[in-house]
C-alpha cells in the first residue's frame, strides 16, 4: 500500500531537459497512466520512480519513505518492460521465481507463490517452457507474473503492450485492467497509445517535451482538454481544430462560420469532436460549407472530411451516408460542442 509523491521532479542531461518540474501525488491503489508522444519524458519519469535513472532535482516519495537515494531493489517496485526483459535461459517457472530467489525469500513459500502468480495470468501449462518457445502475449504475461509474484507496493509498466499485435493488445489490456483491480496495487503505466490510456486509467497525465500538459480522469481530458496539444492527442480521430477569428460571438474562418459563442474578440482556435457534429439537414445551411475532400466508410459510421479553417475537418455521418469526392457538403456544428483555444499559446479559453 503506497502513495507515490513526485515533488518538483526534474531530469536534465546537460542542457537537454528530459522532465521539467513534475509535481504529482499518485494515490494509493490508483492506476495512473503517463501519456505522450515519444520523447515527452514519460518513460524517464517512470525510470526515475524505479531508480534506473537519477533525478536531477526534486524528491520521490513512495509511501512514507523518500527513495531518491535508494537502490532500485530497495524501493519495493516491480516493473514490466516493453520487450519483456525475461531471462532467456530460464524456463517460465524460474523466470517467475527469480525475484523470490535473489531476494532470499523463504524457499518453502516459493512454489506456492509462483503457482499463484502463474494462475493469475493463466500460464500454468507453460511453466516448463523457455521464453523463446512462447508467443509475445505469453511472454508479456510471464513478465506480469514475475512482477506480481513478490507483491510489491508499486507496479511500473513501460509500454507493455507495444510489442503485441492489435488483437492481443486488446485482450492483454483487459487482463491488465482486471489484474490491477484484483491486486489493488498503485500502478504507473506509460504509453503513447491514447486508447490504452482511456481504457485503463483512473487518471491520465498528458506530457509533452518534458512538461505536464494536463492531469485528469479520462473523461476530463477527453471532454475538457486543457490545450490544443491534449485536444489533438486524445481521441480517435483527434479533435478537429480550426483557425479563425472570433468577433461578437461569431467564429469565422475559411469556409466556416459558427455563431452563438462566448469569448473575447480576437484570433482563436476552435475545436470540436467529429462525433458531436453532423451533416446539416437537407435544405438548411450548416456552419461549414465546403467541397468534400474525402469520404471513409468505417462500418458503424461514415467519416466525411473537408477543408475548413486552414485544417482538415472530419465529421461522423450516418453509416448510410454516401457522397462523391468534390460534392459540396454542409456540416452542422452547434456552438455547444465547441471548445475555444488561444491561437498563440494553445491554452483553453474558459467558456
Amino acid at each position, binding site marked *: 500500500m503506497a502513495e507515490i509523491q513526485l515533488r518538483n521532479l526534474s531530469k536534465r542531461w546537460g542542457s537537454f531537459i528530459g522532465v521539467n518540474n513534475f509535481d504529482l501525488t499518485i494515490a494509493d491503489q490508483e492506476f495512473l497512466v503517463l501519456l505522450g508522444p515519444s520523447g515527452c519524458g514519460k518513460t524517464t519519469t517512470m525510470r526515475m520512480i524505479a531508480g534506473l535513472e537519477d533525478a536531477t532535482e526534486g524528491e520521490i516519495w513512495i509511501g512514507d519513505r523518500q527513495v531518491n537515494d535508494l537502490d532500485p531493489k530497495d524501493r519495493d517496485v516491480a516493473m514490466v518492460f516493453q520487450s*519483456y526483459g*525475461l531471462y532467456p535461459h530460464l524456463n517460465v517457472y524460474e523466470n517467475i521465481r527469480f525475484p523470490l530467489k*535473489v531476494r532470499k525469500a523463504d524457499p518453502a513459500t516459493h512454489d506456492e507463490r509462483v503457482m499463484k502468480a502463474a494462475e493469475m495470468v493463466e500460464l500454468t501449462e507453460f511453466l516448463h517452457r523457455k521464453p523463446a518457445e512462447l508467443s509475445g502475449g505469453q511472454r508479456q504475461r510471464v513478465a506480469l507474473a514475475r512482477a506480481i509474484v513478490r507483491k510489491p507496493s508499486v507496479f511500473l509498466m513501460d509500454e507493455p503492450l507495444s510489442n503485441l499485435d492489435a488483437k492481443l493488445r486488446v485482450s492483454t489490456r483487459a487482463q491488465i485492467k482486471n489484474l490491477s483491480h484484483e491486486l489493488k496495487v498503485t500502478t504507473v503505466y506509460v504509453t503513447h497509445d491514447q486508447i490504452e490510456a482511456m481504457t485503463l486509467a483512473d487518471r491520465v497525465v498528458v506530457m509533452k517535451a518534458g512538461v505536464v500538459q494536463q492531469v485528469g480522469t479520462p473523461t476530463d481530458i477527453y471532454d475538457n482538454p486543457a490545450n490544443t496539444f491534449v485536444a489533438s492527442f486524445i481521441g480517435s480521430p483527434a479533435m478537429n481544430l480550426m483557425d479563425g477569428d472570433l468577433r461578437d460571438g461569431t467564429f469565422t474562418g475559411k469556409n466556416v462560420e459558427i455563431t452563438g459563442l462566448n469569448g473575447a474578440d480576437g484570433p482563436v482556435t476552435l475545436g470540436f469532436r467529429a462525433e458531436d457534429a453532423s451533416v446539416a439537414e437537407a435544405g438548411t445551411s450548416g456552419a461549414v460549407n465546403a467541397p468534400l475532400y474525402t469520404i471513409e466508410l468505417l462500418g458503424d459510421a461514415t467519416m466525411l472530411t473537408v477543408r475548413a479553417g486552414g485544417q482538415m475537418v472530419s465529421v461522423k455521418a450516418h453509416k448510410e451516408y454516401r457522397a462523391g469526392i468534390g460534392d459540396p457538403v454542409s456540416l452542422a456544428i452547434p456552438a455547444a460542442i465547441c471548445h475555444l483555444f488561444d491561437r498563440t499559446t494553445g491554452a483553453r479559453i474558459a467558456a
Partner: protein
Amino acid sequence: MKFKTFAAFVGPSLFMMLVFIALPLVSVFTQSFYNTQPVFEQVEIESCTPGFPDPVCVTRTETKPILGEDGKILTQTRFTGLESYRNVLELGRVKDALANGSWRQLMAIDFWKALRFTLTFTLLTLPLVVVVGLAIALAVNNAAKSLRGPVIFISLLPFIITPVIGALSIRWLFIGDGILTSFLEWWLAQDIAMFAQGWTIELMMLFYRVWHVAPFAFVIFYAGLQTVNQDTLESAIIDGANRWERLRYVIVPHLMPLIVFVALIHLMDCYRVFEEIVGFSSQSHVISLQWLTYDFLTPDDAGNRSIGRASASAMLTMIGIVVLLIPLLTRTWRDHKGSH
C-alpha cells in the same frame, strides 16, 4: 541459392582446403606408418700395414650407407605399421614405470613428459584466459566512454606482440641478471633463480600465455557485452539481483556461446604450445608435444630426420586436441539442435 552459384562460391575455398589441409593431413597420416632409413651395406675392408715378409692384413666388416650415383646416401622407405607409434609412446617403459609406481620414471619418457606439460598448461590457462578476458571486458564496458579507447588499445597490446618476442621479453625480465630478478633479489634479499627448476619456468609460461591470449577473449566478450538485452539487465536490477547475480544469471548465460567459442579456439591453440618452449629455452626442464614433433624433425648428427616418429607424434597431438574438444562440440551441437 542455385547449386551452381553455391559451388562457384564454395568451390575455390574447398579446393584450397583440400590441397593445403586435407592432403598434408593424409600425407602425415600415411607417413606415420612408414619409416625412411638410409640403406646400409656390410663392406669387408681389408687394411694392410707394411710388414715383413708379408704385409699384415686385417679384414673388418663395416656398415656403410650406400651412396647413389649422384653421391647422395640412398634411402629406402619401409612400411612399419605402428612401430613409430610404439617408439613414441614407449609403452614398455610406461608399463615398468607404472609397475614401480614411479612418477619420476614415467616423466623420464619424452612423450609422457610432453603430454603432462601440454595438458596442465592447456587446462590451467583455459579458465584463467576466460576469467581474465571477461574481467577486462566488464571493466572496459563499465569504464567511462572517454577512457574506453585507450584502455582497449592497451589491453590489446599483448595480443599484437609477436609470440616469440613476448616470451623472450618476459624471459629477459626474469633471467639471472634481468631487471625484475635483480630488483626482487634486492628487495627480498635472497637469491632467485627462475630458470633453475621446471615449475618456476612453467609458472612464467602460464603467466605469459594468459597475458598473451586474454586480450583475444576480451575482444570477443566485449563485443558480446554490447548485445546484452538492457531490459533483461534492468529487470534483474529491479528484481533485486546484485552485481554478481546479474553477471551469473544474465550476462554469463548470454555470453555462453562466445565462452564456448573462446574455449574451443584456446584449446586448439594451446594444445599446440611451442613458442613458450623456444622463448623460455625450457627444453631441459619442460617440453610440449608440438616441440617433441619439432625435435623429431630436427636432423640428428648423421643428418637423419625421424619423419615417421614425427608424424606419429603429430597424429597423437591431433587426437589429443579432438578428445579435448569433444565435450565442447557436443554441447554446441546440443544447443544447436535445441534451438530448432
